[in-house]
C-alpha cells in the first residue's frame, strides 16, 4: 500500500509536469540557491581569487559555511553538513556512489580525489540532496573537471606549493588537448607532509602523509547531439598518520572509473540526458607497526567495491524545469581484523568487522522547479528507492548471529523522501521556505559492524541488523535583505529525526578492544532534533574592498534533551578581501565560543573558545596566453594552540603555517 502510494505520487508529479501549458522560460534573478557551490577550478580567472590555490579538497570544503570537517589528523577529514556525518549524507562523484573501505572512517570519499580532478563541489542541504539517492543531512556531489570540444589546442598547468608547517610539498601538472570532436587530458598531483606542529611548537606525532593522484579523461563527439566520455582516477595515499586514532594507514588506494553518454536536446522538451556506468574499487590497510606501546598488534584491511549506473534527464517545458534521476548501485564492503598475541606461540585472533555486506540500491528521484513568475518559484523533490542488504560471508553471518540469533541474511528497506521549497523575492527581500520528509537506510557499520572501536568515546560498536529506517522531518527558512553595499542573510534549518540511529551503551556486554569502556549497540532513539542557524553579512565598502562575516549557531539534542555529539558551537568568521591592481589580499579571523553543549557520553569535553587569524596575498602575471599566479600567506598567525569540537580525541590543530604557491597555466 505504502509502495503503491509512493508510485502514485511519482506518476502524478511526472504527468502533471508533462502536460502543462507552454510559456516562455524566464530567467530568475533569485540569488537564493538550493545548493551551494564550492568552486575549485572552474576558470582561470577564479584562481586569482582563491586564498590557497593548491589547498586540499578538504581545505576547499572547509571554506564553505555549510560544511564542517571532522579531523582525525592532517589528512582525510570527514565532511559534515548540518552537523550530520557521512552515514547521513550522500557523498558522490558526479552522481557516482563510492563508499570508504575503512570501518573507522579514516577514508571519507573526499580523500580519494584531489583538486586536479575537480571543478567544483555542490553542497545540498537535507532533502534537496536526493538526486543521487536518499539522504537525511544533505549531499555533497564532487563535480569532476570536464573538458570542452573546441578549436584544436593544447592547454596545461604546472603547480608547485610549499608549506612551512609539516614541510609540506604539493606539486601538480596537467596537460589537455581538445578539438572539435575529441578531447583528452591527464593530470597528476602529489602531496607530501611530515608531522605538523600545533601552536607553540608542539609536534603532533603521526600526522604525516603522502599521496598522489593520477587522472585521465577522454571524450568523443559522435555527432552534434551525442557525446561519449570516459574518465579514470587512480588515487593512492601511503604512510598516512592519524594522531587522533590508535592506528595509522599504510595504504589507501582507489580506482574510480566511468563511461558516460550524453545526448543534448533529443526532443524540444528534453534538454539533456546523460547516463553513466561506473565502478570504483578501494583498498584500505590500517597499520599500527609504527606505534609504540600497542596493547596488541593488529591488521585491519578493508575493501569497498561499487558498481553503478546514474542517469539524469533534464526537461524544460513551460514553467517547469524537471530533473529525473535513476540511481542503481551495488556495493561490497568487507573488512577484517587479525590480532596477534604477544606470545607468538598463541594462535592469532580473527574476525570480520564488516562481514562482506552487499548493498544494492535502485531508486528514482525527480525534481521540478516551477517558475510562477519572475519573482516566485517552487521546487519539488521526490525520491523513492529499494535498498537491499545481504550478508554474503557465512563466517560473518554466524558472528553477527551471536548478537542476533534470529537475524536474516537479507534486509530490504524502501526509503522515501519528498521536499518542497517556495521562494519569493519582493523589494529588498528574498525569502525562501522549505519543508520536507526523508528516510535513509542504516549504513554498513550501523547495520552490520562487528566490534568497531570508536577511539573518541572508547566503546566497541556493534551493528544492529534490526534497525528501522531513520526518518527526518525538516524545515528551512532563508531570508536575504539587500540594500546598496550590503547584503544580510539569515538561514535556519531544523531537523526532527525519528528513529535516530546512535550507539547505546550495553553494560551487559563485555568490550573486546583492550582498554575500551564497554559495548555500544546501534539503536534507534525515539527522535533527535537538530537546529542550524546562520547570519551572514556582506559589505561592499568600495569596489576593491569586500567584508564578509558570518555567525553560526547549532544545537543538537536527543528526545530527552541530551546533547548530541559533534555539534558545532557558536562560531564565526570575518573576512576582508582587498583587491589592488594585480594583487588580491585576504585577511580572516575565525573562531568559536566555548563549547558548552558538548556530549560527555560520546567522549567530548568542553572545548574552550578560540580565535585564529589568517592572511594571504596573491599576484597575477598575465602574458599573452600564459598566466602565472603567485600566492603566499600565513595561517594561524598568532600560533594559537587550539582544538575545536570537530577534532577527534581533542588533537590540536596546526600552529602557524607559512605557505607559498605558484601556478603556471597556458592555453
Amino acid at each position: 500500500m505504502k509502495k503503491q502510494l509512493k508510485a502514485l505520487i511519482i506518476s502524478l508529479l511526472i504527468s502533471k509536469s508533462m502536460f502543462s501549458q507552454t510559456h516562455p522560460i524566464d530567467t530568475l534573478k533569485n540569488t537564493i540557491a538550493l545548493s551551494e557551490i564550492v568552486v575549485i577550478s572552474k576558470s582561470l580567472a577564479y584562481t586569482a581569487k582563491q586564498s590557497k590555490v593548491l589547498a586540499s579538497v578538504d581545505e576547499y570544503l572547509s571554506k564553505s559555511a555549510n560544511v564542517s570537517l571532522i579531523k582525525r589528523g592532517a589528512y582525510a577529514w570527514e565532511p559534515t553538513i548540518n552537523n550530520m556525518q557521512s552515514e547521513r549524507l550522500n557523498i558522490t562523484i558526479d552522481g557516482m556512489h563510492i563508499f570508504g573501505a575503512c570501518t573507522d572512517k579514516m577514508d571519507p570519499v573526499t580523500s580519494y580525489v584531489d583538486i586536479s580532478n575537480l571543478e567544483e563541489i555542490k553542497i545540498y542541504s537535507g532533502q534537496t540532496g536526493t538526486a543521487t539517492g536518499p539522504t537525511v543531512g544533505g549531499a555533497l556531489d564532487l563535480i569532476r573537471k570536464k573538458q570542452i570540444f573546441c578549436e584544436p589546442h593544447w592547454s596545461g598547468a604546472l603547480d608547485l606549493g610549499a608549506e612551512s608547517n609539516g614541510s609540506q610539498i604539493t606539486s601538480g601538472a596537467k596537460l589537455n588537448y581538445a578539438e572539435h570532436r575529441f578531447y583528452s587530458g591527464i593530470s597528476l598531483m602529489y602531496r607530501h607532509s611530515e608531522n605538523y606542529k600545533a601552536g607553540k611548537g608542539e609536534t603532533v606525532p603521526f600526522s604525516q602523509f603522502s599521496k598522489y593522484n593520477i587522472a585521465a579523461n577522454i571524450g568523443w563527439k559522435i555527432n552534434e547531439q551525442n557525446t561519449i566520455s570516459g574518465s579514470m582516477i587512480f588515487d593512492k595515499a601511503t604512510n598516512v598518520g592519524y594522531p587522533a586514532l590508535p592506528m595509522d594507514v599504510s595504504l589507501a588506494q582507489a580506482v574510480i572509473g566511468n563511461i558516460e553518454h550524453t545526448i543534448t536536446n533529443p526532443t524540444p522538451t528534453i534538454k539533456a540526458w546523460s547516463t553513466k556506468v561506473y565502478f570504483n574499487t578501494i583498498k584500505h590497510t590500517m597499520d599500527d607497526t609504527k606505534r609504540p606501546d600497542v596493547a596488541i598488534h593488529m591488521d585491519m584491511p578493508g575493501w569497498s567495491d561499487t558498481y553503478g549506473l546514474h542517469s539524469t534527464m533534464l526537461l524544460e517545458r513551460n514553467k517547469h524545469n524537471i530533473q529525473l534521476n535513476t540511481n542503481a548501485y551495488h556495493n561490497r564492503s568487507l573488512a577484517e581484523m587479525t590480532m596477534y598475541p604477544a606470545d607468538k606461540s598463541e594462535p592469532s585472533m580473527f574476525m570480520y568487522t564488516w562481514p562482506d555486506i552487499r548493498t544494492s540500491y535502485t531508486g528514482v528521484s525527480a525534481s521540478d522547479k516551477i517558475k510562477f513568475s519572475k519573482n516566485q518559484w517552487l521546487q519539488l523533490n521526490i525520491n523513492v528507492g529499494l535498498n537491499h542488504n545481504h550478508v554474503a560471508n557465512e563466517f560473518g553471518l554466524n558472528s553477527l548471529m551471536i548478537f542476533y540469533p534470529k537475524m536474516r541474511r537479507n534486509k530490504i528497506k524502501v526509503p522515501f523522501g519528498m521536499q518542497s521549497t517556495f521562494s519569493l523575492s519582493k523589494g529588498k527581500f528574498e525569502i525562501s521556505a522549505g519543508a520536507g520528509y526523508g528516510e535513509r537506510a542504516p549504513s554498513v557499520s550501523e547495520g552490520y559492524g562487528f566490534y568497531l572501536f570508536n577511539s573518541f568515546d572508547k566503546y566497541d560498536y556493534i551493528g544492529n541488523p534490526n534497525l528501522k529506517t531513520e526518518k527526518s522531518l525538516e524545515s528551512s527558512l532563508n531570508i536575504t535583505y539587500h540594500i546598496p553595499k550590503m547584503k544580510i542573510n539569515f538561514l535556519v534549518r531544523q531537523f526532527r529525526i525519528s528513529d535516530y540511529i546512535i550507539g547505546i551503551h550495553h553494560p551487559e556486554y563485555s568490550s573486546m578492544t583492550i582498554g575500551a569502556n564497554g559495548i555500544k549497540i546501534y539503536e534507534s532513539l525515539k527522535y533527535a532534533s537538530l537546529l542550524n542557524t546562520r547570519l551572514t553579512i556582506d559589505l561592499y565598502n568600495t569596489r576593491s574592498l569586500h567584508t564578509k562575516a558570518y555567525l553560526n549557531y547549532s544545537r543538537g539534542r536527543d528526545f530527552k534533551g541530551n546533547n548530541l555529539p559533534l555539534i558545532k558551537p557558536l562560531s564565526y568568521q570575518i573576512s576582508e578581501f582587498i583587491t589592488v591592481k594585480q594583487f588580491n589580499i585576504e585577511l580572516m579571523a575565525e573562531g568559536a565560543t566555548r563549547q558548552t553543549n558538548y556530549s560527555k557520553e560520546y567522549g567530548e569535553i568542553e572545548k574552550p573558545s578560540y580565535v585564529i587569524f589568517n592572511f594571504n596575498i596573491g599576484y597575477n602575471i598575465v602574458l599573452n596566453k600564459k598566466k602565472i599566479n603567485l600566492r603566499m600567506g600565513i595561517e594561524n598567525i598568532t600560533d594559537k594552540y587550539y582544538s575545536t569540537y570537530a577534532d577527534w580525541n581533542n588533537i590540536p590543530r596546526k600552529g602557524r603555517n607559512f605557505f607559498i604557491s605558484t601556478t603556471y597555466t597556458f592555453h
Partner: protein
Amino acid sequence: MAMAIIGIAMSSCKKENNEIINSETEGLLKIMEMSDDEYTVELYSSTGNFQLGYNEVYLRLKERASGNYQTTVNFSWVPIMNMMTTTHSCPKSSIQKETGKETLYSGYIVFQMPENADEHWTLTINYETAASTGSVSNQISVPPSIYKKVSVFTGTDSKKYIIALVQPQKPTVAINDLTLGLFSMESMMLFPQVTNYQISFDPRMPDMGNHSSPNNENPTISDADWMYHGKLSLTMTGRWKLNLMVRNQDGNIVKGENVTNTQDSSLFLEVEAN
C-alpha cells in the same frame, strides 16, 4: 569351470557386502586394530587418534577367518592408566550399537591425563558374540594436548571430580552448542556421571584483554545423555578460556571463582575457535 563361476559370483557378492559394511565407517578414521586368534576389534574416531579428554569412539568386530563383521556383539571396555605407583581407570560410557548401523558400535571415554615416558594407558575390550567370548588388550597412545579439554579437581566437599569438554570439538566463530560432562571419582575404577549439579561458565580471551562474549547459556543437565548442555558464543578465532564454576544440588560452590579484573577461575577448560 563351474567352481570358477561360483567363485566369481561369491567374490562379487562379498565385495558388495563389504562395500555396505565399509560405508558404515564413512567419515571416520581408524585409530587401531586389536586382535586375538579369532577376532579383530577395529577402533575408529573422527580424528583417527585418541586425545586427552573426551573421545567418541566407534568399534566393530571382524571375524578373522571369514572377514565378516559381526552384527550382534556385546562390547565392554576397561581403560587403565598404568602409573608408576598405581593404576586407575577413567570416565567411560557403555558401548551401544549406532542407530541405523549394522556393525558399528560406539561409546565414549574421557582420558583425564596424558601418557608420559613412564606412564601409559592400556585399553581392554571385551566382546561377546553368540558363538564366543573373548577380550583384546593393547597399549594406546593419549598424548598431551595444547588446550585444556579436561580438568580433574578436588571439590570443597573433598571429593575428586572430572569435568570434560564434550562439545564443541570444532568450535567456530558463532553460537556453539556446548556440552560438558561431569564425573565424580568414586574409586580408582568407578567414575559415575554427576547429574544434579549446576555449572556456570564465563568464556574469556586471555590474549585480548580477557574479554568475554555475549549471549552464552549456562549448561543444564539433559536426561538424554546425562550431560550438561548450553550455548557458547565465540566472537573471534583464537584461544578462549572457559572459566567454570560448579555448584552442588544445594547451590554451594564445589569449585571455581567468578572472573575478576585480576583473577580467572581456578577451574577452566580451553578451546580454539576457527
